């Protein structure tokens, strides 16, 4: 039986601000954000990497924050939905596009969709292929995103309200 809770200190930079925390080793990034930092934008939809509602950017890459032990992220740079737009500015263009397209209903998957879409756009720009990318496309070049590509790349973010078609349109709106 456990005699004590084992903890370690770690520093996470969240939306530009450093936080040094004494972390229960069991605590995942999602719970650090929601419980310790009161950043509840990242959502707990399944807690097992099966829905994408908890998606945030870790060192610029989209990740499921529910499966990352926070203690292992010491020194990482985390961006949540709350940090997508700079202070004092309006919403990020993708957030604006979600509003314009009515790309959500209940809103619970929305922060994850937003972070995931931004991560996906960066991946495509960096030349990452997807399951639907033509294997004949030369490697190492940006992958153009049509609707089939967007749908495949966002498939790690479930939406039960069925806003998918609108989300795809919103993402198209911000493709440079």
């Amino acid at each position, binding site marked *: 039986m456990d005699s004590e809770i084992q903890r370690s200190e770690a520093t996470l930079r969240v939306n530009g601000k450093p936080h040094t925390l004494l972390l229960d080793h069991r605590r995942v990034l999602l719970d650090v954000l929601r419980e310790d930092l009161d950043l509840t934008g990242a959502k707990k939809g399944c807690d*097992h990497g099966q829905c994408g509602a908890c998606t945030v950017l870790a060192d610029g890459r*989209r990740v499921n924050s529910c499966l*990352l032990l926070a203690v292992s992220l010491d020194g990482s740079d985390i961006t949540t939905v709350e940090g997508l737009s700079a202070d004092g500015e309006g919403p990020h263009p993708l957030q604006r596009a979600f509003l314009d397209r009515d790309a959500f209903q209940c809103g619970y998957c929305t922060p994850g969709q937003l972070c*995931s879409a931004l991560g996906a756009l960066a991946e495509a720009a960096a030349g990452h292929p997807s399951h639907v990318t033509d294997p004949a496309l030369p*490697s190492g070049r940006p992958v153009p995103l049509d609707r089939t590509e967007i*749908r495949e790349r966002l498939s790690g973010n479930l939406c039960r309200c069925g806003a998918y078609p609108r989300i795809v349109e919103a993402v198209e709106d911000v493709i440079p």
Partner: protein
Amino acid sequence: MRSFDYVRARTAEEAVEAFTTHPGARYLAGGTNLVDLMKLGVERPTALIDVSRLPLDRLEELPDGTLRVGATVRNSDLAAHPLVRDRYPVLSQALLAGASGQLRNVATTGGNLLQRTRCTYFQDPGKPCNKREPGSGCGALAGVHRDHAVLGTSPHCVATHPSDMAVALAALDARVELYGPEGTRTVDVSDFHRLPEDRPERDTEIRHGELITGVLLPAAAAGAPSAYRKARDRASYAFALASVAVVIRVAGGRVSRVGLAFGGLAHRPWRARVAEAALLGEPAAAGVFASAVDLELAAARPLPDNAYKVPLARNLALDVLTRLAPAPAPL
């Protein structure tokens, strides 16, 4: 989930050392499967040895043309790497057919090989499972087993291995590089995962304390026509009902080299050695492909609800084989 110790290793030596001094330890890399299973109470480590920051995050080409993939290379980076896309398209395709963008950004090459089964009985500590709790029985035999294995099963376990990547690696004749208390060794990917037999609790041939440090992609398979195809219940973000990886070279109308492996059918990526032997040296023709694949699948022993996997695997294999090695156009 009980409380556990946490150690971050800087080198493989340090990791193995920490593992041996912490009874009940597990290595932590991406954690996408391990943390999931810890939350379910299936994995109950007393310590995690974090190997995610070991200097094993690169691909390098060895002098003999082998491509060495570090164990902590993330699945998304491996799938996108130009050398992989250009030389081993089957591997890139298999990786991209699995999981989601987020999971692939975190999951590692080594961790992917060590994924545990998605069998619902394995994942529920409230139900019997010989893999999780040896001797407790197999819930799937009398329960729900539509997703379960049809090849190489035992009365103790009908679980499947969930990896897509490993299926491609098997077809490529890749090897797993291991480092442990007894030193370094390599094992063929096709022999790395086990069949359940009477020890379903053992997924692989990995020894206590051993750490996967890399995967070796042989030069011989580089540039060969290859592809991966997977059937699943939804268009993305789902495990394979069945899948196939094919690497094939045809010379003078005859099969000169072939690697064929199935996913979703067995406790390990199913290397179709019988079919391969039947294909080698034979004409690249649809009838030959069909006979070879049928010979392989004749060993299938489906349960009442998963017999569909046999024709599904057959169709997948024939589709990919004929696509990669089309019959020569008539003169």
